[in-house]
C-alpha cells in the first residue's frame, strides 16, 4: 500500500467528527497497527497549530499533535530537494489554476519524494498529475 501524506483537513475533519470521520478512524486504525504508513510535513503541523491557536485552542492543538505522533504518523522536515521541488510545483500550479498555496506545494513535493499519495478532501489537488489523490 502506498505511503499516505495526510493533509490538514483530514485531521481536522476527524477532530470535528464530521461526515467521513468513520473512514478516517479506519485509516488511523490501519496506521496504528502498521498496516499503512503515513507522514505529514512539518508545515501541516504548523498549519494545524496556527488554525487552533487563533481560536484559543492551543492546548487542543498540542493534544492533536501528541495523538498523531502516538499513532505513528511520521513528521517529515522539508529538506533542500523538497523545498526546491515545492517551488517548481507552486509556480506550475499557480498558473494552471486559481492558486496553489505554499503548503499545497510542500505536501505535493513530499508525496513525490516519498512516492506516496495525498490523502485529502481538498479539491485543489484534483488537477495534480504527479501523484494520486485519495480520500480516507
Amino acid at each position, binding site marked *: 500500500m502506498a505511503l499516505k501524506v495526510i*493533509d490538514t*483537513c483530514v485531521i*481536522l475533519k476527524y*477532530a470535528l*467528527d464530521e461526515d467521513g470521520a468513520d473512514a478516517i478512524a479506519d485509516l488511523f486504525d490501519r496506521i496504528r497497527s502498521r498496516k499503512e504508513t503515513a507522514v505529514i510535513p512539518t508545515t501541516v503541523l504548523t498549519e494545524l497549530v*496556527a488554525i487552533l491557536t487563533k481560536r484559543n485552542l492551543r492546548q*487542543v492543538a498540542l493534544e492533536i499533535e501528541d*495523538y498523531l505522533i502516538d499513532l505513528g504518523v511520521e513528521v517529515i522536515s522539508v529538506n533542500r530537494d523538497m523545498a526546491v521541488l515545492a517551488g517548481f510545483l507552486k509556480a506550475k500550479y499557480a498558473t494552471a489554476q486559481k492558486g496553489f498555496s505554499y503548503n*499545497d506545494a510542500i505536501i505535493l513535493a513530499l508525496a513525490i519524494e516519498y512516492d506516496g499519495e495525498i490523502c485529502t478532501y481538498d479539491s485543489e489537488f484534483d488537477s495534480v498529475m504527479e501523484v494520486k489523490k485519495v480520500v480516507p
Partner: protein
Amino acid sequence: MIKKFENLNELKNAIDASIKGKGRLITLEELLVIMPERKVKRDIRGILKGLIDKKATDLMREERESWR
C-alpha cells in the same frame, strides 16, 4: 518471505528453538511484524466539536489563503 508470527508465544518458541540450534535465526523484520499496536492516550475524534463552527476544509483553505 517474512513469516508472520501470530503471537508472542509462537515467536518465543521459535527463538528458543533457534537458541538451542534447532531452528533458524529470527530476523529483525519478523520481530517488527509482531510488535504490538501503538497505544494512543486519548482519541481526538470530536475533540473540536462545538468549539469551531466551520468545516474542516474551509478552515484549512482559509488558513492556506495566507500562504499564497
